[in-house]
């Protein structure tokens, strides 16, 4: 059976990640691309051989098996719920929603409608972390202390939606959920409490009254410690605006450390410094998105159980939300 798929939101993440993955996945047909910006919808549709829409009702009237929601975070809940109510399975980008409350509503709607709600926690499909997890199990290491860093210099102008806490949740949520989910995944346990501190470093963050540098110390059950550092304010030049990840796992019976600075690159030296031509930072993303989508489509086809559930996504968001509360109060907050 071939799945009929529709896309809502043909902006950044669609163009960077999903578009090329969708071209490679068989058994799936993208039939419609919707965006409030007609030009973006048209371009996306053209590339995927689909029809373009700017009207959501017309789009949802189509006979679609699944809808991919790839829009800014604050619209996730409304769009996902409308798609679910129209009888479509939903794959939504992370974070699941802007707030836990919205996320819960989405999950309830999916349950009521008997449809899948799947959230794009792409780190769970990234071969670096999958292999690390496998090694931990194979070599009998028990992680007790994990530090995960995801940092970048956000290249967008100050009026872009990322900088607006009410639309993106800020860096604590936007990048934060990647790390909070990663920690739960690696510890295979639940968080107990969080202490967090936020800073506004870049002009864009200060102008918008949001944090662009955020530290979470998360206590997990069994005396395990997770340290999450997320930042949009690392002062790399904008052309290096890719993510830098660092992982340090200290455990019983071993330690595992990953820093992109230890791994192979092909750099070029010219009069002006250039981006690396090969870098593990850049190399795993496309494959991860493809693996994620393949997996989600198989789940929808009933061939697979979800490796990461909407509930997982909700807890990842809940930790980030509590962390923001902690940073606001300056106190430890129970999760």
């Amino acid at each position, binding site marked *: 059976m071939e799945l009929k798929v529709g896309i809502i939101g043909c902006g950044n993440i669609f163009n960077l990640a999903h578009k090329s993955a969708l071209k490679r996945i068989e058994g799936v047909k993208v039939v419609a691309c919707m965006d409030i910006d007609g030009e973006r919808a048209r371009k996306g549709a053209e590339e995927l051989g689909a029809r373009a829409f700017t009207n959501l009702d017309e789009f949802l009237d189509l006979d679609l098996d699944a809808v991919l929601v790839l829009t800014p975070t604050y619209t996730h809940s409304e769009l996902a719920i409308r798609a679910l109510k129209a009888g479509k399975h939903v794959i939504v980008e992370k974070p699941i929603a802007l707030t836990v409350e919205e996320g819960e509503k989405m999950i309830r709607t999916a349950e009521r409608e008997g449809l899948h709600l799947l959230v794009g926690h792409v780190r769970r499909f990234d071969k670096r972390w999958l292999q690390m997890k496998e090694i931990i199990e194979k070599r009998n290491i028990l992680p*007790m202390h994990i530090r995960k860093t995801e940092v970048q210099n956000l290249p967008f102008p100050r009026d872009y939606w990322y900088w607006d806490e009410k639309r993106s949740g800020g860096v604590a949520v936007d990048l934060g959920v990647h790390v909070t989910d990663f920690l739960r995944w690696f510890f295979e346990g639940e968080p107990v409490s969080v202490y967090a501190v936020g800073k506004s470093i870049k002009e864009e963050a200060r102008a918008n009254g949001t944090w662009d*540098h955020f530290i979470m*110390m998360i206590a997990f059950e069994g005396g395990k*410690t997770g340290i999450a550092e997320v930042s949009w304010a690392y*002062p790399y030049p904008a052309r290096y605006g890719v993510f830098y990840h660092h992982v*340090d796992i200290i455990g*019983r*019976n071993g330690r595992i450390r990953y820093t992109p*600075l230890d791994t192979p690159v092909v750099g070029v030296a010219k009069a002006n410094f250039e981006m690396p031509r090969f870098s593990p930072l850049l190399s795993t993303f496309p494959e991860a998105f493809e693996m994620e989508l393949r997996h989600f489509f198989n789940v929808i086809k009933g061939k697979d159980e979800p490796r990461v559930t909407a509930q997982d996504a909700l807890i990842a968001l809940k930790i980030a939300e509590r962390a923001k509360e902690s940073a606001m109060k300056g106190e430890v907050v129970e999760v």
Partner: protein
Amino acid sequence: MRKLRMGVISYAHPHALRFAGQIASGRHTKLVAISGDGPNSDVARVEARRFGAHFYKTYEELLRDDNVEAVYIAIETYRHKEVAVRAAEEGKHILLEKPIALTLEDADEIIKAAKKAGVKLMVPYNPRFTEPLQKAKEMLDAGEVGPLEYIYTISENVKPPIFLQGLDMSWFLDARKSGGGGFMDTAPHGIDSLFWLTEDVPKKVYADIGAKIYGFPVDDIGTAVLEFRKGVLAVLTAGWGNPKGYSYGIEMKYYLVGREGFLDIRTAYPDFTVYQERAEKIYWDRPDVRGIVESFARAILKDEKVPIPGEVAKKNLAVVLAAYESSRKRKAVKVSL
């Protein structure tokens, strides 16, 4: 400049090995006496013979040696006050292993005794004497990365001291003698470098410290979030988290995020690697120990201020103790320094 005649009190702390060697070979220092108090007194005796220094069984005898002008004290932490106060009373200048003492009250007594006797008191923390960190500080001060915003540091992470061969390190696992485990042992280094880099002190500390890795009766690793008065945020991991196979003896690492730039400082000392059944890094220079001993000797011989006086070491201890308190109570702790 003439040479300062120094004695080493006790080989309980393994740093005595490095300091004795440096004192003996220093440009402005001479090692004239060693005492064998506490654990590893046999090692102390052998070392005394090796360096041609006079060996005393106890520090009391060493302190009565008029030839000794200054002492490096490497006895177990719980005896710091007793020995340092006596050294001051005997008019000896003091280089006292960190942490300064078990409690802030003891630290005060040591500081007071040194002041009363008119002797110099210094506590050695290594990172600020390492070349990469000094370079970084220079760059910070020159404004090359803009105002400092955030520091992440592992400073320092080592293998548990009981993995050291040939030395009795068991007192490190007894909190009554050491004040704590891996965090107490290593966090003071990182805290000092944060003081120095930020030229500020923290106002609030949150920490998670525990016996997480090895099942020792004391903590083996901890991480603290430190909010400094003038706005710098720092995260510091310290302890004994490195497994046996970890190739570095000491891991020291700093990420400094300024508003306009980023400094990545990853090695403490120049080294080469030996590959056998596992890889091992051999440091071919320890400019930190040299810097500590030289600056201490210079301060005495030229009657200048020591770079890290007792007051700074007391603040350092206050932060360490606040971190332990925070971890115990599971809440953030305010510090007023």
